[in-house]
Structures are given as structure tokens and as C-alpha cells.
């Protein structure tokens, strides 16, 4: 491919991801959630057309406006062809104007107004996180519709097959078709709960990006950016700016601030003690602090609050040795009470090891409630290996590390575990 072509591909990849979600949202407002498929087709056609034309004529001065205009014109064609079709419901007062040529163009212009797009994105998020859609399907749907990820990229991110991802998307869209979901924010009484579901989906997205070592660095970065952008939208809207929204935002800022120091250029994991703290992004840490302050209102503490406080402790420690592990252990104790989860227990055990030593950590690990659930989880065995190693119990350390290697699918994780194992065998 020519240099020009390469340049366009890089630019479009990023731009397309970002603009696709906006366009899908506006188009879903126009066609209704039951026609999400149509909205996605229009976006796909628009992006294809952009690629073809931009390669020949160069990228226009305002590429986003170009994309919006083309998508809008394609939508007008579809409305003209389908205004009497039962598949589309143009009965509410605003969309009814789309059926008359007198008002089609002006109404379309008003629906595509830049200042409305943020609200449309927000409504789209709530539609994707409808309680009738399973949690994993919610996340898949957000990735596809709002973050502009391809089925292949989603499959890679979740270590599942493209077939599985397609089926999940199909089921979610089927739900939209069968139940006439309105494209709007939930009523005030449901808002808090429904926002919780959206936050949870964003949290899962972010964690997937932050912790996954199997996807490409570029994709991980894009995914983290998208998750943060979605949450930022929630912080900007009066109805969704709850304390937990700010807390999640703070949490993501703190985590993301360490991004540059977590992996080597070759994609190998650098563990916290060895991370170059000068590479931490202080602007993001400051931003996280601001969100933390905003989160400190109301009388409810969410798991995001506590996790953000823990992340803050790590970010604010001058060096690994100066980390306030007692405080962190206290926060993990709290987290395990507020939102018990195997991951929280596991992380707590790390803090126990730093504060009380490996013997206590071993006890904590073996006493994790529902420990059988942990058996298939490589991190559990990896930590167990570390604990045994520090206890000079090399046989059990070796067994645990080998189990961990067997259980993880990530090459980067396998490599770290093998290195540990090699140290042990020497």
C-alpha cells in the first residue's frame, strides 16, 4: 500500500472508532433501537465510502463533519425508501416530520446537531445496558456500537470466538427488536440503578483493557480511552453525575496514569515494584484527585470509591518501599465487606503479605470464602506460588506456578511465571 494509504489507515482507524459510536447513536435515535442493524449498516457504508474517497482525494479538512454529512444523506435515502414500511415507526412527533419532504431535510439537520450528540451517546449507553440484556452481552454491545470495535477485535479482547461474539450481538439486537425499547434516559426513579449498570459495564470494559495482555497495545489503549470517554459523559450530565460516577472516573484516571510503565516495548509485564514511577502521568493523577473530591459527597460508599482510594495510595507512594500497605490493607478489608469478590480477596492477600508476611498471606489465601471458585483462576495459583516461595516451600511453589502457567492464556503472563519458576529451580 502507498504511504498515503498507510497514513489514511492509521488516521481512520482511530477517527472511525471514535466517530462510529456517535453516528450509531444518532442513527438509532432516528430509526429506533429496533433497527440498530440499519444504523450500523449506514455507519459501515459511510466509513467504507470515506476510505475510498479519502484515498483518492485526501482527507477532508473536517473529517468528522464529512462523515456526519455522508451518514445523514444515507439516512435520508433510507427514510425516503422506507417511510411507509412497518419496520420503521415514525409516529412520535419529531420523527413524524421525517416522512414529509417539506420537513425531512430541516428535521434531519436538527437531529444531527453536534450539541445533541452527547445526549444521544448517553441514551445509547442506557439502551445497551438495559436490564433485559445480560451483562456480558451489554459489554459486547457497547464495544460494537459505541466503541466501534469489530467482531474480531471483541473476540480477541474477550478471548472468545468471533462466532460467540456474533451470537451475543444477535441476541442483544433481537431483544431490541422484540421489546420496543424507547431511546431515552430511564425515568428518575430508575436512574440510579440503571446508571449503576452502565457504570458496571464501563468498569468491566476498562478492566478488560487494563488487565488484558493478550490484545495489542494499540487496541488496549483505544479501549481504555473509550471507557474513560464514556464515563466522562456520565460525569457531565446532571442526571448521571452520581458520587459513584465520579469515583469510577477517579479510579480509571489513577490506573491509566500508570499505563506507560506497566509494559515493556515488547509487551512484557513490568510488576509494580520495578515500574519506573517517573513515567507515571501526573496530569491524570491530578485529574483523578479532582474526581475523587467530587466523589466525596452523599453518604454512600461504592466499591469504586474504595478501589479508587487504593489506586490513589499506589499512585501517591514515592517508591514501592514507601507504599502505605497498612492503609491499603484496611481499604481491602473494607472492599471485601462492601463488594466481596475473589479478586478483592486475592488483592487483599497481597496486602496481607506486605504487612504481616507470607505466613499470614497463605492463611488468608486458603481461607478465601468459596475458594473452589479460585481453583481455575491463574492469579490465585500465581500468588500462592509467590507466597510458598517466600516461605521457602519450593515444592509447593513450583506446583502452584506450574498450575498458573497451565491456566493462563496470556503469553506475557506465562513468560513472567516461567521466569519466576526458573529462579526457583536455580
Amino acid at each position, binding site marked *: 500500500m502507498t504511504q498515503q494509504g498507510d497514513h489514511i489507515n492509521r488516521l481512520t482507524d482511530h477517527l472511525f472508532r471514535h466517530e462510529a459510536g456517535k453516528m450509531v447513536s444518532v442513527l438509532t435515535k432516528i430509526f429506533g433501537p429496533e433497527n440498530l442493524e440499519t444504523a450500523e449498516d449506514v455507519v459501515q457504508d459511510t466509513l467504507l465510502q470515506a476510505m475510498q474517497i479519502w484515498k483518492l482525494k485526501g482527507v477532508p479538512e473536517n473529517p468528522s463533519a464529512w462523515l456526519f454529512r455522508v451518514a445523514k444523506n444515507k439516512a435520508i435515502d433510507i427514510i425516503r425508501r422506507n417511510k411507509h414500511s412497518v419496520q420503521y415507526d415514525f409516529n412520535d*412527533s*419529531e420523527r*413524524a*416530520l421525517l*416522512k*414529509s*419532504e*417539506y*420537513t425531512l*431535510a*430541516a*428535521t434531519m*439537520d*436538527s437531529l444531527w446537531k453536534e450539541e445533541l450528540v452527547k445526549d444521544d451517546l448517553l441514551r445509547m449507553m442506557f439502551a445497551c445496558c438495559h436490564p433485559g440484556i445480560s451483562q456480558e452481552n451489554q459489554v459486547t454491545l457497547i464495544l460494537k456500537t459505541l466503541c466501534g470495535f469489530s467482531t474480531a477485535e471483541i473476540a480477541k479482547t474477550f478471548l472468545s470466538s468471533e462466532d460467540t461474539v456474533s451470537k451475543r450481538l444477535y441476541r442483544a439486537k433481537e431483544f431490541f427488536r422484540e421489546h420496543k425499547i424507547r431511546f431515552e434516559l430511564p425515568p428518575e426513579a430508575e436512574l440510579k440503578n440503571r446508571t449503576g449498570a452502565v457504570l458496571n459495564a464501563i468498569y468491566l470494559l476498562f478492566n478488560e483493557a487494563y488487565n488484558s495482555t493478550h490484545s495489542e497495545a494499540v487496541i488496549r489503549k483505544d479501549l481504555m480511552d473509550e471507557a474513560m470517554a464514556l464515563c466522562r459523559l456520565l460525569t457531565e450530565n446532571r442526571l448521571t453525575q452520581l458520587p459513584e460516577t465520579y469515583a469510577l472516573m477517579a479510579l480509571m484516571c489513577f490506573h491509566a496514569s500508570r499505563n506507560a510503565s506497566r509494559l515493556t516495548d515488547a509487551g512484557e509485564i513490568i510488576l509494580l515494584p520495578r515500574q519506573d514511577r517517573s513515567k507515571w502521568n501526573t496530569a491524570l493523577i491530578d485529574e483523578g484527585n479532582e474526581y475523587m473530591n467530587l466523589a466525596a459527597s452523599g453518604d454512600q460508599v461504592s466499591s469504586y470509591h474504595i478501589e479508587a482510594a487504593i489506586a490513589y495510595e499506589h499512585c501517591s507512594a514515592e517508591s514501592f518501599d514507601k507504599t502505605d500497605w497498612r492503609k491499603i490493607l484496611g481499604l481491602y478489608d473494607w472492599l471485601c465487606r462492601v463488594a466481596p469478590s475473589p479478586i478483592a480477596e486475592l488483592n487483599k492477600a497481597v496486602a496481607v503479605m506486605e504487612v504481616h508476611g507470607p505466613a499470614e498471606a497463605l492463611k488468608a489465601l486458603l481461607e478465601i470464602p468459596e475458594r473452589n471458585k479460585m481453583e481455575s483462576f491463574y492469579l490465585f495459583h500465581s500468588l500462592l506460588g509467590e507466597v510458598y516461595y517466600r516461605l521457602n516451600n519450593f515444592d509447593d511453589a513450583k506446583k502452584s506456578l506450574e498450575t498458573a502457567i497451565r491456566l493462563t492464556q496470556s503469553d506475557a503472563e506465562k513468560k513472567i511465571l516461567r521466569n519466576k519458576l526458573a529462579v526457583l529451580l536455580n
Partner: protein
Amino acid sequence: MKEYLFLFRGGDGRTLQQSPEKWQAHMQKWMQWMGALGEKGQLVSAQPLNATGKQVTGSKKLVTDGPFMEGKEMVGGYLMCKADSYDAAVDIAKGCPILEFDDGVVEVREIQELKM
């Protein structure tokens, strides 16, 4: 409520179309006018018509081209709406942006219920 058909004559927008800004501003008014009707649930449908046409006449079904009448006499579009009475329908018609043109005409006709 009864149904009314508005027939639009005159008010040729073609000179206006030469300036995109003026044209947009004018169409914005159509959107406001019809939007208000729609919000009250009174709008049924509306479309502009091309200046071309065909006529089919009589039992011989004679086909001829065009209405070929002078521009301002030709029906250029229609709107169907619901209103309580002729008075109410006329009030609605008074808001029609075609009346910004001096030769613009809105003919208001009530839909007839045929005797069974």
C-alpha cells in the same frame, strides 16, 4: 375532529432556493409549523409536488401531459390534518409559511363523509 386537506398554490420557492441560507431559514419555518401540528397529534401527512404531471380523462382514459397552467394556479403541495372545525383549520392554515409569498394560497377543504 374532522379531517382537512390543504392545497398549496403559488408561493414558488425556486427563487429562494438560490440562496441556501434563505432556503434553510424558510424550510425551518415549515418544520416549526408542521412540528407544532404534529405535537398536537393533528398532522396526518404532507408532501410537495413536482411541477410535472399527467392527466387521465374520461371513459376513454385519454392521457395528456401536465396541468400546464400558470405557476401560481398549479397545486404545488398538500397537507392533511385534523381540526375541530373550518375555523380551526383556517387558523392552522394562517400559520403556513407559503403565505410569506404574496401569491401564496392555501385552499382549505374538509374531507367529506360519503353517505352509506
